[in-house]
Structure formats: structure tokens, C-alpha cells
């Protein structure tokens, strides 16, 4: 949903990933896919003139390093995972800021945006008794949409 909210914010979104499945998904969500398995994402983004901001949920020091390198001077990297920041050249006045869930007001904002049809989660459902199966599929990378348990269905 980072892509959906970024598009809502009016940004051109470049989705950097090594996963072919996620490259397809990025394309579906109106982002420009950047295949980090075959090209250096820093070079790709630099060729565009850099990006204004980066949002990092990849649990990878290397991804964070590349994100910091590819934002413009004065840009912001938002980090939603544990990762080592590494070199941060002060003269470019770049910012790295952490982010965790959201406030109650932000929760209300998200519900209002979803009710207006601006963002949508893609889900597949499982009975409560199939929770372990759903967790196993998640562990093995076999779930593309969000698995949702329906305990009282």
C-alpha cells in the first residue's frame, strides 16, 4: 500500500525489487518497476535526476545504502525496518527517519481513504483452523495477496 499512498500523494513511484512477482505487482499499481537483480538501482534512479524521497521496507543494509545514495540532496529516506544506515554525507542534507505503524488519527485517515475507494487491499481468506497453513504459505513466499483469517465465517 506504500505504492498506492505514494501515487495518491502525487508522486511518480519507482518500485525497486529483486522479485519478478513484485515487479509485476508494481506495474499493476501504476509504479515504474526497477529490477534490482539485473541493474544497479542507484544508476537507474540517478539517470532520472534522483528521487525526492525513498521509503524502505526491505530488511537490507544494502537497500538502505542504495536508497540514501539515490535521493536528491535535501531528500528524505523513510525507514520501516531494522537496518544499518551507513555513510550519510552531511553536505547533502539528507534525512533518514524511522516510521512505525501510525497514530489513531492516521488510522482514521486510512479508513476514510479506503471507504472512498482511493486505496484497496487485495486479500485471500482462510478459515481460523487453517491459520497454520496460511502462516506456512507466507513463510514459503507462496502468498501474493494478504492472507486474512475469517474466524466466524
Amino acid at each position, binding site marked *: *500500500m*506504500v505504492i498506492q499512498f*505514494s501515487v495518491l500523494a*502525487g508522486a*511518480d513511484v*519507482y*518500485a*525497486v525489487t529483486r522479485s519478478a512477482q*513484485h515487479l509485476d505487482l*508494481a506495474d499493476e*499499481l501504476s509504479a515504474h518497476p526497477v529490477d534490482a537483480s539485473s541493474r544497479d538501482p542507484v544508476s537507474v*534512479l540517478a539517470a*532520472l535526476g534522483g528521487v*525526492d*524521497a525513498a*521509503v*524502505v*521496507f*526491505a530488511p*537490507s543494509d544494502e537497500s538502505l545504502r542504495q*536508497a540514501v545514495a539515490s535521493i536528491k540532496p535535501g531528500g528524505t529516506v*523513510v525507514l520501516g*525496518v*531494522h537496518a544499518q544506515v551507513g555513510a550519510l554525507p552531511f553536505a547533502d542534507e539528507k534525512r533518514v*527517519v524511522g*516510521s*512505525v*505503524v*501510525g497514530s*489513531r488519527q*492516521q*488510522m482514521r*485517515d*486510512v*479508513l*476514510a*481513504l*479506503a*471507504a472512498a*475507494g482511493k486505496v*484497496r*487491499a487485495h*486479500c485471500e481468506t482462510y478459515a*481460523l483452523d487453517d*491459520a*497454520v497453513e*496460511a*502462516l506456512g504459505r*507466507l*513463510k514459503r513466499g507462496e*502468498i*501474493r*495477496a*494478504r492472507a*486474512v*483469517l*475469517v*474466524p*466466524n*465465517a
Partner: protein
Amino acid sequence: MRAIVLDAPGPLESGVVHRGDHVDPRPGSGQIVVRVSACGVCRSNLHMIEGDWVAYGVPAFMPIVPGHEVVGRVVEVGSEVDWLHPGDRVGVQPLWSTCGHCPYCLTGRDQLCSAKQITRETVDGGYAEYMLATAAHAHPVPDAISDVEAAPLFCPGVTAYNAVSKAAPHPVRHGRFSVWGASGTWSSSSRSWPAPMFTR
């Protein structure tokens, strides 16, 4: 009630998490009981189950019920709750409760409250027929969204929204963002919680 419970952290395949009977929740003051309609399955549930966060004190007790993106209907309200009623549809996010009086709570940054309780880390979550919730941290779900589609809004949704809000503090037009890795916060599918929110 029926629930999925974690006895003790370990490999998923070893049977540490399984169906079981769990104590029926009863609402205290300021609390509600929700009959769970939908609960998202998050990568962070796997982290807790497999023991990745034991060093952080998660889970805080055992057996514990996983699940922290929960939608359902209110079935019971405790004292001091006059704005929610049985039958109301609500959702609960990982932020299960906060102190309400620290500088973070006072400035709308309740996710930074040091006294916060986290759904499925320090209190039972939504892999169950019923769940206890804090009324002030339960959010009415608009009619336009189904139970199932609403559930992921309560973790990857709000997580992505907060992150993008920080990337775009002002309306961006013709700007460029890059987003890096992880399916969960992209679509709705998963990795939004590589670390626990609550550390002791």
C-alpha cells in the same frame, strides 16, 4: 472460545502454534469484546512465533493468541464506554492501548508511548473467535469496506500511510519516490513488521 494459540516460540513446523481452547475475554472498564470477523496474517506474526523477538521480550506471556489487524463486531462493552455499542463494526490495529497522558500521547504520536500495549505481543490478538480491545483504540469501520478488505488497513495500511506521510510532508506534485522491497506494504501482503514495536 476457539483460538489459535502459541505455546512457546519455535519453528512453525514443530507445532508450537495450534488450535486450542482459550479463556473467553470479559471487558473491564474502558474495554470492549469484539467478535472477530477478519484478522490479517502478518509476517511479524511469524517472527513472534518462530522466536525472532524473544530478546525483545516478545511474546510477553504464553500461551498467547497472535494477530493484530482485526475487524469484527462489538458484542460486549465495559463500564465507561458510551460511544460504542453491541453490533458496531470496529477494527483494532497493533496499537492496543496507550497511557493517554505522556507527551507523545498528548501530541498525537501515540505509537511512541512507552507504556503502549501491542496487540498479539503483550495482549492476546485476533486469531480467535473473540478479542478484548480498548474502546478508545477501536476504530469504526465505514460501511463501504468489507470486513476482509478492512483488516489489512489496520497494519500494512496504517504503516504505509505513516511512512508516506513522512516522505511527503507537503503535497507532492511531479515529484519522484522510490520504494524498496517488501510485498506487505506494497500491496497488502506482508513484511511490514521486521521488528517488534514493543521492547521492554
